[in-house]
């Protein structure tokens, strides 16, 4: 109590001494006193008797005695101390659990909503380099079916051309199956690839190259001319029927001798024999490998003499498909465009340039590992680290050449 309250308290005590209550003439009867003390009266009656009790000391005293005797003093002030178990139990009372359940449901809903929001707004691996060559390749392969059909049509229309093709049936089957094979089969062993490259170089001639390039341009004018490397590969593809024939077994008029050696070599690779034995076999295989260019030369000469459009176009298609195969199997550096960190880069020479780069932009030169490089945004650094060589990135309106 405050000081003011204590002052009133003192005055009331004093007033209680001096201004004592009034004993009225009429008193409550025993039943009324008992009913009041028991708290069994309706509100109106209780209020009425209360006004009497305020002024009647005798009745009030009796009521107090009755209340004390009935044990109401103890009943009202029974301490409500609970045991620990009761307190813990009260925490899980249904009246409280309903709020807890509501809160849990609310939290769960918010969590799920947040998860969905994160999924919908999350950028799909923006900092992971993606090679867009596959997409552009799909764009290329889609129109490729048209030239293929066209060649097929030409082949059926001119029997002479069909005759000029040495092995039309296996070529056609290989062409049809190639996309699946390139997609599924692992890249060829480097030894075989080297051998094929050697063979291609040996058998390629300037005339054949010119014919191939010219035919490729004639058949598929919508595409840009293949780079020189690809042209060389296209020449290699001209020899592929022979190479493929090796895979498909002996053809008409060919001896089984060379397949024996190839079988041996493959068997040797599979069994993994001793190195010297393998070398010995390679030496024994050399004559066979030398024979093949002779056949190829002859076939190429025949082809160059006849110059069938279908063949050149077919070789161009094969070249592109093979290029796709090698691109998928090879490193992504050979792609023309790359998408890194949500940005597109084009290869210009040996460096990658952001497509957003404008000629008016001034390029800041930064070398990897330098202090300036460390000061760059982490995202920009991450993008630049996706490239091995120099790269020009447009970042927040500025161009950086990172090398």
């Amino acid at each position, binding site marked *: *109590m405050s000081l*003011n*309250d*204590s*002052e*009133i*308290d*003192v*005055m*009331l*005590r*004093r*007033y*209680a*001494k*001096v*201004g*004592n*209550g009034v004993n009225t003439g009429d*008193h409550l*009867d*025993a*039943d009324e*006193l*008992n*009913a009041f*003390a*028991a*708290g*069994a*009266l*309706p*509100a*109106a*009656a209780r*209020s*009425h008797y*209360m*006004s009497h*009790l*305020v002024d009647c*000391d*005798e009745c*009030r*005293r*009796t*009521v*107090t*005695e*009755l*209340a*004390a*005797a*009935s044990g*109401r*003093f103890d*009943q*009202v*002030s029974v301490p409500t101390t609970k045991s620990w178990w009761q307190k813990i139990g009260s925490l899980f009372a249904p009246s409280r659990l309903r709020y807890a359940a509501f809160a849990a449901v609310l939290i769960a809903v918010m969590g799920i909503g947040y998860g969905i929001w994160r999924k919908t707004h999350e950028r799909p691996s923006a900092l992971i380099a993606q090679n867009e060559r596959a997409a552009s390749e799909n764009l290329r392969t889609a129109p490729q079916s048209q030239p293929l059909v066209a060649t097929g049509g030409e082949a059926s229309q001119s029997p002479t051309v069909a005759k000029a093709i040495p092995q039309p049936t296996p070529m056609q089957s290989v062409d049809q199956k190639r996309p699946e094979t390139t997609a599924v089969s692992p890249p060829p062993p480097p030894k075989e690839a080297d051998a094929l490259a050697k063979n291609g170089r040996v058998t390629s001639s300037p005339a054949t190259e010119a014919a191939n390039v010219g035919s490729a341009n004639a058949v598929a004018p919508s595409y840009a001319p293949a780079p020189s490397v690809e042209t060389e590969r296209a020449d290699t593809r001209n020899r592929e029927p022979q190479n493929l024939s090796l895979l498909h077994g002996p053809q008409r008029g060919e001896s089984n001798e060379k397949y024996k050696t190839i079988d041996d070599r493959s068997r040797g690779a599979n069994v993994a024999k001793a190195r010297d034995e393998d070398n010995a076999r390679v030496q024994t295989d050399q004559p066979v490998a030398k024979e093949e260019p002779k056949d190829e030369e002859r076939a190429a000469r025949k082809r160059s003499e006849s110059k069938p459009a279908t063949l050149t176009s077919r070789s161009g298609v094969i070249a592109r498909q093979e290029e796709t195969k090698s691109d998928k199997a090879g490193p992504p550096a050979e792609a023309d465009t790359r998408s890194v960190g949500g940005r597109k880069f084009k290869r210009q020479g040996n460096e990658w340039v952001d497509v957003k780069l404008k000629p008016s932009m001034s390029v800041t030169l930064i070398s990897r590992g330098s202090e300036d490089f460390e000061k760059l945004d982490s995202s920009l650094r991450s993008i630049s680290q996706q490239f091995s060589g120099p790269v020009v990135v447009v970042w927040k309106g500025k161009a950086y050449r990172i090398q």
Partner: protein
Amino acid sequence: MLRIIDLSKKEHRFEEAIAAGAKRLLGRAEDSRALDVESLVSRVRATVEKYLLKHDPAAVPDAVAAFIDTLHANDLCLAIACQRGDQAAWSDLVEGYGATVRSAARSASPNEEMAEDLAQSIWAELHGLKVNDDGRASGKLAYYSGAGSLGGWLRAVVGQLAIDRHRREARLVHTEEDAEFDRLARDGAIETNSGDGFTAAASPEEALATNLAAKAVEEALARALKGLDDEDRLLVKLYYFDGLRLREAGAVLGFHEATASRRLTRIQNDVRKQVEKELMDEHGWTKSEATRSLSQVATTLQTDLESLLKAPQRSLVQPSGAEGESAAV
């Protein structure tokens, strides 16, 4: 005419509610004492009229039914059976409540002999010495309504009988205690009016001013207390005048000690505001003057209280309240 019809309809509904309530009450009783509904209806009707309809004429039959359901069925059946001369019921009454009566008599009597005498006379009062027209004795049991336990009612009867006896004796002998009571009260009034016992004023002017202020404060306090509602006044009476503890005062009024404490604090604030308002309105004092006078009078009264408590003679009021914590009962 219509009003008479309405009243008769209302009375009819009440009668139906009372009859139904009496039937339920008989059903609730563990031992109906071979009573029928008709024997209960008149008693129940009297109880309803006394405690409900008399104070709340607008009460509805549902309220009547609810009130009847609060009556003590077993005790009422026992009382009615005793009233009707059921010897088995009498035996049960004496056996079940003999100890209660003796205990109440001891509490109300100064010695054991008087207590025993009082207890014996209770049974006679309950049975009744007079005989009604129907040949039955009209004892006090006829006044038991069932709106409280029979044991509590018996205690109240014993207490009232003891007070009646005391009054009869008091008419003959003015007790020493009462004489002391009156003397102290008179002295207190004189002291309040003169102010001699309150202050040690430095000058007669100061003493006069202080006494005037004390009188003004006391009058304002009396008016402020009268302005309280009955329940608040009863709480003040029980706590300050009867010297009950907060727990006991709250129990009499039917609420918890904490509630009593909060209510008393509010009452004190209300009284202070009212006293200050009275002093400002009637005497033209400023707020600070009223507050200062109140504080000064309270300090004076506190000093006086302490001196009274230290007095060897028995004081007017037992040491009570916050310091005393002694129950007057």
